[in-house]
């Protein structure tokens, strides 16, 4: 979590596999306290849209949208892919950046960004075997896909980067989680008996 006041950035981070729901609002209080800012001073909220844990994303996004409504301020979404690309750009030496994150054992999401940071396309789900073929030549690769050669490791984005990217964005549709897959739900296995006099 980060608060960008324009003059300085106050940032906090706790790595946890659960407990986000309990920690999120105390952290918001702590960051505001440290920056000596009141909630009313927030002009815009930027929230990470993932990909990531579905529950974690929903918590963050529901809280961000609720807080924006309460404050009457803007809210924008920034994906983990965009944030990781922005963080890595200074290492790319004028080349594009490709971010690849593992979704399951053999499936990843990939998104490529031009040298100015603009996305070259939307996030795409691809099999890890096909990853090489969708990346621009000479692109700097970052992510967590073990099968990919020469890739800079990356895990979670810096919240200050999410704030910076969010500040530069034009608000549009309210942020929604980047699930990249349909909900797990099984359609009924057996059809009901035929109606003989339908």
């Amino acid at each position, binding site marked *: 979590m980060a608060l960008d006041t324009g003059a300085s950035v106050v940032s906090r981070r706790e790595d946890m596999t659960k407990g986000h729901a309990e920690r999120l609002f105390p952290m918001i209080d702590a960051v505001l306290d440290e920056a000596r800012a009141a*909630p009313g001073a927030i002009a815009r909220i930027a929230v990470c849209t993932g990909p990531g844990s579905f529950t974690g994303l*929903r918590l963050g996004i529901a809280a961000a949208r*609720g807080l924006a409504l*309460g404050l009457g301020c803007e809210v924008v979404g920034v994906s983990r892919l965009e944030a990781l690309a922005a963080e890595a750009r200074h290492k790319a030496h004028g080349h594009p950046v490709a971010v690849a994150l593992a979704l399951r054992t053999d499936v990843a999401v990939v998104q490529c960004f031009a040298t100015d940071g603009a996305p070259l396309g939307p996030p795409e789900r691809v099999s890890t075997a096909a990853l090489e073929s969708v990346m621009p030549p000479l692109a700097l690769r970052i992510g967590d896909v073990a099968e990919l050669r020469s890739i800079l490791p990356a895990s979670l984005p810096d919240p200050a980067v999410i704030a910076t990217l969010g500040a530069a964005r034009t608000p549009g549709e309210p942020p929604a989680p980047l699930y990249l897959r349909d909900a797990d739900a099984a359609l009924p296995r057996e059809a009901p008996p035929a109606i003989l006099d339908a």
Partner: protein
Amino acid sequence: MASELTILGIESSCDETAAAVVRARAEGGVARGPGQILSNAVFGQEDLHAAFGGVVPEIAARAHAERLDLVVRRALEEAGIGLGAVDAVAVTSGPGLIGGVLSGVMAAKGIALGAGKPLIGVNHLEGHALTPRLSDGVDYPYLLLLASGGHCQLIAVERLGSYLRLGSTIDDAPGEAFDKVAKMLGLGFPGGPEVERRAAEGDAARFEFPRPLMDRPGADMSFSGLKTAVLRARDRLAEGQGGLYRRDVADLCAGFQAAVAEVLASKAARAMRAFRDRYPGLAQPVIALAGGVAANTSLRAGLDAAARAEGFAAIAPPLRLCTDNAAMIAWAGAEHLLAGEHPGAVSARPRWPLDAGAAPLIGSGKKGAKA
């Protein structure tokens, strides 16, 4: 706390994303109904779950997370007020599907922090339990039958915060049984309205379905075996004739619905007698209905007849207050605040029995009783 409050309520514990603005007033530290419902907005999800024949938790969670702020905006617009005119925010913090409850709690915390309002967590079941006070200004104590897709309980609502469970289903809720019967007969989701429509054309006496737990004392109920009995009857017919005739579907629905009606009415009658023993001095005892099952005319008729026979007045709030909604959550929050309670920390509780002293009957693992 002031003697009049305007409360924003938020509900997302199952498959309705809802927000409402309710004004409540108190006399002598006790809320006095009926409340004034300034708005009662509900974004349903039936279309999202229809193909699956039941509520899919992940689909529900996805929808809630992206609709909570929108439904709150709608409720404020319909009430014609801004957040500044709201005294407090009340949110369902359990029991229910954890994905929706969590998103509701987080959105409510954000709204409360942003608008500088106190936040109170409300038990969803208490919202249902107090609805007769919101809708009809019923005084404590009264008997409540909550029968819905997720719950089935007979509760003595003694006073705010004091609920005595007189009976409960030990397995499925009746609304769930209606949905499952609809699914096995290909009648769509939610099943209640269509099963009722088909039942109206059917012969309830053609199939002899069981009346579970009628042979046992007390007001506990069971609907799972009944549902299985319908499935067996369906299979026997389908095997013999290679399918079902419309007549068969109607008769199965009628037989099933009659069994549910009889169980509910006779168990409610037992609870009415237990309630009267506990409160012998009440001039006019009241049994109130809550939950979507109150929409079924035939079940309602059975309960009304049982109430008449036991000397109870039967009260059924309007259907939009019987099914899941946020006006009941706002009202329950208002009752607590008007009683002088201070809002404490709010966290999501997937399991949260209304009567904490009652022995768990269903879904009680190491995490405790569900509801």
